[in-house]
């Protein structure tokens, strides 16, 4: 198990490096510089600024410098918020985004897996078809449509929940953003769970378990759930990525001062070090979470572990 984990960790390093280099090159290939929209600067001042931020160096050299800083956890200074480093800015904004993302993910897993399992057990019934119809809708409607509809209904019409972030305090302001963010994932996980649960319920060992008179609940909980979760677990990687990108949109719509909103500001401001920093941070996060998923996979499937 330890060996397996170690191999996974080592395997993740090149992926991460590749992502960083690509992001770096892409940001540098973008037209315009961070200081372009300010008033025109005298050539020598511009050169000074360029030197201060090492923009006068060759690209490979800049890249190496960046990677060097990265190893020490230094993502460089922000071009726009000049008193802060990128790391400080991320550190300040991320906890809120993390809370939002984690809650959405938890909701998606709990609701998605339950709905999918129930649908699988009731395969072909009215209930099954309802669940499937709902999840089809959930997958096909984009976040920027869902959010206003939810707001209109729950906040404006029923007035159960606050519509925006600043209009209230407390936990209730999290509800709509979390649901919005989770909805497509609930839908996807439900479909995935249903399909894989139907497959597992048809296997011989489930028949054995039923022949032992264990009862549906125990059969599902003890025998079927673990193997049925394997495809869902594999989907966790993409799901995490989807939640991260989704959070950028959702934070903007609901006005939540999280990392996503920061990211959009940074891009509009051409604060390239901040953009790059957030991209790298997200990439590292996704790689890390995928790593955890892989290790969990090994923990569930003994045959993977012993290989």
């Amino acid at each position, binding site marked *: 198990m330890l060996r397996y984990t170690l191999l996974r960790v080592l395997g993740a390093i090149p992926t991460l490096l590749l992502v960083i280099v690509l992001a770096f090159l892409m940001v540098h290939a973008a037209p315009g510089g961070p200081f372009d929209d300010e008033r025109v600067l005298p050539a020598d001042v511009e050169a000074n600024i360029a030197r201060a931020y090492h923009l006068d160096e060759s690209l490979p050299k800049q890249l190496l410098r960046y990677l060097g800083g990265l190893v020490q956890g230094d993502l460089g200074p922000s071009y726009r918020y000049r008193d802060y480093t990128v790391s400080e800015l991320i550190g300040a904004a991320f906890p809120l985004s993390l809370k939002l993302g984690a809650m959405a993910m938890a909701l998606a897993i709990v609701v998605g897996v339950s709905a999918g399992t129930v649908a699988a057990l009731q395969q072909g019934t009215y209930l099954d078809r309802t669940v499937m119809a709902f999840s089809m809708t959930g997958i096909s409607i984009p976040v920027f449509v869902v959010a206003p509809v939810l707001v209109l209904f729950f906040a404006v019409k029923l007035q159960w929940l606050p519509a925006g972030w600043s209009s209230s305090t407390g936990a209730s302001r999290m509800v709509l953003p979390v649901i919005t963010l989770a909805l497509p994932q609930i839908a996807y996980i439900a479909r995935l769970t249903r399909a894989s649960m139907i497959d597992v319920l048809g*296997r*011989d*060992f489930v*028949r*054995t*378990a*039923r*022949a*032992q*008179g*264990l*009862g*549906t609940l*125990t059969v599902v909980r*003890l*025998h079927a759930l*673990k*193997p049925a979760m394997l495809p869902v677990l594999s989907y966790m990687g993409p799901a995490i990525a989807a939640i991260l990108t989704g959070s950028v949109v959702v934070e903007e719509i609901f006005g939540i001062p999280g990392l996503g909103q920061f990211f959009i500001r940074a891009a509009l401001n051409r604060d390239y070090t901040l953009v790059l920093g957030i991209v790298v941070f997200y990439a590292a996060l996704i790689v890390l979470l995928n790593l955890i998923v892989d290790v969990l996979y090994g923990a*569930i*499937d*003994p*045959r993977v572990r*012993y290989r």
Partner: protein
Amino acid sequence: MSLLNVKDLSIRYQQTAVVDALSFSIDRGESVGLVGESGSGKSQTALALLGLLPRQASVSGSIRFDGTELVAASEEALDRVRARRIGIVFQDPMQALNPYLRIGRQLREILVRHKLARGAEIDERVIEMLVRVGLSDARRQFHAYPHQLSGGMRQRVMLASALIAEPDLLIGDEPTTALDVTVQAQILELLEEIRDNTALLLITHDLGVVAGHCERMLVLEKGRLVDVGATTSLFASPGHAHTRLLLDAAPRIDRASALPQATGASILGIEAVSVSYKAFGNEQLRAVHDVSLSLRSGETVAVVGESGSGKSSFVRAVLGLVPMLSGRAVYAGAPLEGPVERRVKAQRRDLQLIFQDPVSALNPQMRVQSIVAESLLVHEPGLSSQARLEKVVEALGQVGLGDEYLGRYPHELSGGQAQRVAIARALVLGPKVLICDEAVAALDGSVRKQVLALLRKAQEDTGLAIIFISHDLAVVRAISHRVAVLYMGRLVELSDNAPLFSRPRHPYTRALIDAVPVPNPVVAPKKAPLRGEVPSLLDPPSGCVFHPRCSYVKEICKSMLPATRDLQGARVACHCADEIDLSL
């Protein structure tokens, strides 16, 4: 009153009845065999008894178990009967046990669910049960996952799970079909030993198993019960033509074959062939060790041995499908060298292989005609399409398939028909050597008999030489001229058919023969001749590899590998072959 009373049981899928008005009963403690060909409804009947049929099945009639009606009973009512009153063992323990769960856990849950034990007592009872089914080191195996156990051990666990709640009826649905004969003998013996007064419904296609273990038998044909009675009387005088057909088709290990001597010229010589595979890391797994064999035209040489004995690896190396580590093979004076793709066309044409699973060996997108014609396109490109069609029709005729099969796809064929198409595809090229790797193992008795007869016919007509790999010694006795016995990749005995079965020279050969159930209820089943299972090839025993399981073992066997020597026409690798008399 009977323990189980089935009356007018019918099982339908849409309009077709797979079980039709079936009635029978089982008394307490009685053992009943349920026999029939594949697709006759045996397993469906078993599943119906436990309410495990799929939703689409519509069930009618009555199943009364100890006064409780089970047809249309609620899941809760069924759960009170399952395991507690009726236990079941399925065929393939790899599939039937949960691969994600430690076996102790799988057994525990039965006791917990049925409230048969509590607290620390639960694990104790599970371990006790594991000991009873013969798991050595049960305390450690308690924590094992199914894939860490051998096939035989898994089936023991399966049996433990069926018996742990002490049911009144045990159903075995082909419980030993996936196992080696030697392991089958152990499991059947164990079954008798530990079932006490539990009634037994044993489903099997093997009449030898029924003869040895069932007092009464039921014969199913296409979902209908055609014959029922005491096993001894049905074997002596079958009440129905179908029973007679099954009995006639059952291969008899206890009867000599009437094959004439093969007198053809030597065609294939295989000398000291070894095969090894890469196991984990750098370890080498030696699957075949210095096996030599020769073959005449018109001759059938059988290769037998338990699973993992290297039968398939051996022939694959000869065919160039896996690399030969050392040794050589000579066909018609020229060496067979290198992988099959690099061999000359004539050699590829003359040596043909047929696999066990006919359906997966045929391309599902091609019609029978193209399947059979395909290799002709490669090997005889000059042929006109008319001439090719004629050859195809002739080859199909040889295996008893008429013109009407030309346009069919593989899924439109039964298992037996598909295997015949595979044989026709091999025969159409006019091969000189045909290698059959368990080619009839998946077939029903009567179909197997037909296929074997047509192979024999092809041999008589064309002088075909056949290497016949099989785990079924009864079939081997009926059709082969000579027999090679492999154990852990080594040739332990090579002998003519008649002497091998009347006076085997190697203790392993004798054990294999003894393990085969005899389809004769008058003969009491022998004790399982071998304990344990084949050791790992990664860590083979010292000296004679068979010594840990041999009952004639001497001191020298543990340290010295026995040389292969000639003993009145037989080649034997055993230190004691000339001292012990293994005559049957």
